[in-house]
């Protein structure tokens, strides 16, 4: 379903930017907002931007992916107005930002749940968090160690510029990834690869796992996660995700360089509006919770 996303993104950027070019010739008050970063967020933000531009004719938004690290580096190097990021700033980035002397406004506009997927032939449907850590650290080599079939484990992950790569390492791996992890270009590639690989395991955003009709993409088994001493929780259990019982849920950020103003502010507010949050939910992500709403309000960006 998402195989052509990158191409589509590129085409869209070209279309949106040529649009803004021609519109720019007609009326001069069009304001362009550049948004770069997280591949997890790019499709969602694109849809939000398209809807936003329908309501606000003098704005022009260009959205590109490239990974959270890329978005943040672009923000630091002043090449984007908004950085999409699926992880908080790390200490090195904070240092660089302090050195440059600006303040970053972290807005949380959605939540994402990460699902661990395996090939159906691995014959595994539940794993504990520590088992997944073991698998990704390279300490387990065969699915039979976890009650599955006798198939060697084949690891798939993202590249180090991905926020998901960093998040998964912090929460699950808690060490170095094994050097045999195949580093894929994007989530869609992980899904394609695990579908073809009988021993494959990968981690993906839930938005990529479900089709538009809310059905799991064929040829993948989403793994239910076991937190020590509790019953397994499926990544398809939406209530568990919203209540915070599913262990792999993370906030999705948008960072701005200094206080957002003008169209950037208007767009951020649109995302946080009821309409914006409905689009978030429709795309397989999750609306922000009360404490995140409060944090946004404290920044002066929320809608109260």
């Amino acid at each position, binding site marked *: 379903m998402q195989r052509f996303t990158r191409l589509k993104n590129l085409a869209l950027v070209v279309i949106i930017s040529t649009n803004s070019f021609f519109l720019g010739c007609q009326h001069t008050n069009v304001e362009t907002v550049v948004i770069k970063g997280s591949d997890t967020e790019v499709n969602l933000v694109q849809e939000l931007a398209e809807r936003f531009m329908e309501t606000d004719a003098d704005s022009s938004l260009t959205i590109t992916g*490239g*990974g959270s*690290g*890329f978005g*943040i*580096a672009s923000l*630091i*190097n002043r090449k984007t107005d908004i950085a999409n990021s699926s992880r908080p700033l790390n200490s*090195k*980035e904070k240092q*660089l930002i302090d050195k440059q002397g600006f303040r970053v406004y972290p807005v949380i506009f959605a939540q994402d749940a990460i699902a661990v997927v395996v090939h159906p032939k691995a014959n595994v449907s539940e794993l504990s968090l520590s088992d997944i850590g073991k698998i990704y650290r390279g300490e387990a080599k065969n699915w039979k160690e976890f009650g599955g079939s006798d*198939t*060697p484990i*084949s690891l798939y992950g993202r*590249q*180090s*510029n991905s926020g998901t790569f*960093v998040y998964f*390492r*912090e929460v699950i*791996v*808690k*060490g*170095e990834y*094994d*050097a*045999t*992890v*195949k*580093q*894929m*270009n994007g989530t869609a*590639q992980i899904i*394609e*690869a695990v579908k*073809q*690989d*009988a*021993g*494959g395991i990968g981690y993906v955003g839930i938005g990529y796992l479900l089709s538009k009709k809310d059905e799991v993409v064929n040829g993948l088994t989403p793994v239910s996660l076991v937190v020590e001493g509790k019953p397994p929780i499926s990544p398809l259990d939406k209530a568990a995700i919203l209540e915070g019982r599913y262990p792999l849920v993370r906030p999705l950020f948008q960072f701005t360089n200094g206080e957002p103003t003008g169209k950037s502010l208007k767009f951020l507010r649109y995302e946080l509006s009821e309409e914006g949050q409905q689009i978030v939910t429709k795309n397989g992500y999750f609306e922000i919770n009360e404490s995140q709403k409060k944090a946004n309000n404290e920044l002066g960006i929320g809608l109260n």
Partner: protein
Amino acid sequence: MATDINRVGTLAKDSNLKQRLFADNLFFWIFRAAAALAILVLLGIFLMLVFNGGRMFWDIGFGEFFFGTVWNPSAYGAEKYGILSMIVSTIFVTLLSMLIAAPLGIGTAAFLADFAPQRLANILKPAIEMLAAVPSVAVGFIGIVLVGPAIASVFGLNNGLNALNGAILLAVMSLPTVITVAQDAIQSVPDSYKEASYAIGANRWETLVKVTLPAAASGIIAALILGTGRAVGETMTVLMATGNATAMPTGLFDSVRTMTATIAIELGEVPFETTHYHSLFAVGAMLFLITLSVNLVAEWIASGYRNRGQ
């Protein structure tokens, strides 16, 4: 030369001639400047790579960089900057691709030069050159959806994102270079060699293998080395097709990550003026040295056969 033109200019009172000589002189200097610019750009790239890359050695020892097998600059624990496994991966994939491209390329070149009827050659030659026009992203895509699954099913593997996949794609991509240069080399063998061979009773196969190919050997080797240079520097295709695991390769079916892929993956996210940033320049400088020496060797060998041909 400029004085010559001036002398002629003063001799000729015709102002039209003067104008033409001025234009001649002007363009001589413009083109000379253009040629100098190309060299300056090359030098500039090299110096930039070396200066930025060199600063890495303030933080990391030579031994760790060249002989370390773990590359993990955004590590959870200690950062590691060893490029040995990616150099081995790069060389491994490249040599493998030449093993595939050599028989195909030389065979095609020999066929085009000596055997193909003119009409067929007129179709084949541009078709082969068209191969060079296929974007590397498209080749990589074919690697993911076609070559990878094919390798997996032929060899009974779980997945086809490995060194062999990259090598097959690189072989296809370097074929136009190999075939074009090798064909020139084979065609430059004087007809008298072949006539002498036929005269003593050799058939076409014997003439090709025992006379023509050995006579064109230096040109054919140059073709292969130029193809190698093409393959070493290729980025997108290997990035998409080889799986990019950072481990040291142990066989054909291991996933590998080349130097080019590492730079492409990591340069986008790296904050400026950090050890990681400088280390990527150092990898770039190494890559530049490898392709430069490959091209110099090819040039040296090729000039050997060109001079002899005259």
